[in-house]
């Protein structure tokens, strides 16, 4: 019996991150070879492949929610970091201001233009070489924004609505037009490079003011500047695991249901008594409200499954989220390959 309890304790330490009242226990991965007698923890690709699976929970135009089961925190976090900072996109980098008589300063205007997501597949372009000021057709996209605000001659005499009084007084991202460079019309005959959203307000004008700028978009990564990040956000959480250590009945069951997010605990009537049951632990956000009630504190064990990650990826619209995840995995492979090549080429002494 002592051995069984010890094994159960080891199982818990290996597979669950436990949320106690005042802190979180068993946070770090401990299943390395030699730590647990009786377990073979050496890396085995076959065992990994048998235990690994991916389930896509929800897939919409811009968001993707999927589960990765059987992988470790280090690698899941590496994917998340790459999604945020190392998947390349195209964004406005240089703004050539020919005329700007609006009240938005040049540098503020340039900053705002840089943050606009551009619908252009970055895999079709190269990175710009260091020190190259002009930009060639394989690494640069050129956009023009030329707009002038004027008074509307047909407006009523006493109206005070700016929409009626002025023409072109709001500068939206739909006013940005693509100016093909060199042989880009031949390279991209069907492409229609434009900002992802047409209704991003860039600046506001009044009659007589005009903006005339030329923009160069280049390929970059989020590590360099956050405007190049392709995701609105990419995050993951671990699958919650709620176990009731003892049966909970009647008022305690009702109270328990209120302590968790809706849908997590279900109260059923069995033989006239109300009994609580864990219906769907995945929905819980772990506010740990149970620990505030003395009567319920010891009846529940809150934990998370250590190797089950629920990823949520929201794209800004440049690339669909499933393409982003594939690109992130390929980038991690590219990093490993780079070091393998260096190991083979540089002689070690």
């Amino acid at each position, binding site marked *: 019996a002592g051995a069984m309890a010890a094994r159960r304790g080891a199982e818990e330490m290996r597979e669950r991150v436990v949320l106690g009242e005042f802190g979180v226990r068993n946070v770090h991965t401990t299943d390395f070879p030699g730590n647990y007698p009786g377990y073979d923890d050496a890396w085995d690709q076959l065992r990994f492949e048998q235990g690994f699976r991916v389930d896509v929970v929800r897939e919409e135009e811009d968001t993707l929610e999927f589960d990765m089961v059987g992988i470790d925190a280090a690698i899941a976090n*590496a994917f998340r970091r790459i999604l945020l900072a190392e998947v390349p996109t195209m964004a406005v980098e240089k703004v050539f201001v020919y005329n700007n008589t609006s009240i938005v300063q040049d540098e503020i205007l340039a900053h705002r233009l840089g943050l606009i997501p551009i619908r252009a597949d970055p895999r079709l372009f190269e990175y710009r070489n260091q020190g190259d000021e002009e930009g060639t057709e394989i690494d640069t996209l050129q956009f023009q924004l030329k707009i002038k605000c004027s008074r509307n001659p047909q407006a009523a005499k006493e109206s005070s609505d700016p929409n009626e009084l002025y023409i072109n007084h709001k500068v939206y991202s739909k006013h940005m037009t693509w100016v093909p460079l060199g042989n880009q019309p031949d390279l991209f005959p069907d492409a229609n490079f434009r900002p992802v959203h047409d209704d991003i307000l860039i600046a506001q004008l009044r009659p007589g003011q005009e903006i005339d700028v030329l923009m160069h978009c280049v390929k970059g990564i989020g590590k360099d500047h956050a405007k190049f990040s392709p995701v609105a956000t990419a995050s993951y959480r671990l699958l919650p695991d709620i176990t009731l250590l003892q049966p909970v009945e009647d008022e305690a069951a009702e109270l328990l249901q209120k302590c968790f997010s809706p849908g997590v605990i279900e109260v059923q009537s069995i033989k006239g008594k109300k009994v609580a049951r864990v219906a769907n632990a995945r929905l819980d956000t772990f506010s740990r409200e149970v620990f505030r009630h003395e009567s319920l504190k010891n009846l529940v064990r809150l934990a998370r499954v250590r190797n089950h990650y629920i990823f949520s990826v929201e794209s800004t619209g440049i690339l669909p989220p499933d393409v982003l995840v594939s690109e992130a995995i390929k980038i991690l492979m590219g990093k*490993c390959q780079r070091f393998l090549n260096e190991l083979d080429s540089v002689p070690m002494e």
Partner: protein
Amino acid sequence: VQADGTDGNCVTFVLHDEDHTLGNSLRYMVMKNPDVEFCGYCITHPSESKINFRIQTRGSLPAVEPFRKGLNDLMGVCQHVLNTFEVRLLPQDFRDLF
């Protein structure tokens, strides 16, 4: 990549232009190797993007071997994750075609 250390069993690699992204995942893969006695990485200074990655092996195995094996294992993991992920997305695409 630079390496220095005594007698080839304990080696510190200096990886340039890397951070926790590769450092932590590579450390995990190398630790899974039963021949490795110690594996760790640290970022020398947050303003410089380089990491010190140290491997010490049991016995007489040269430390470059677990490093190479760790990189290969990590590539295998990524390849499998990519394949599984893309297969999992396929049925959706097929359904959209109909």
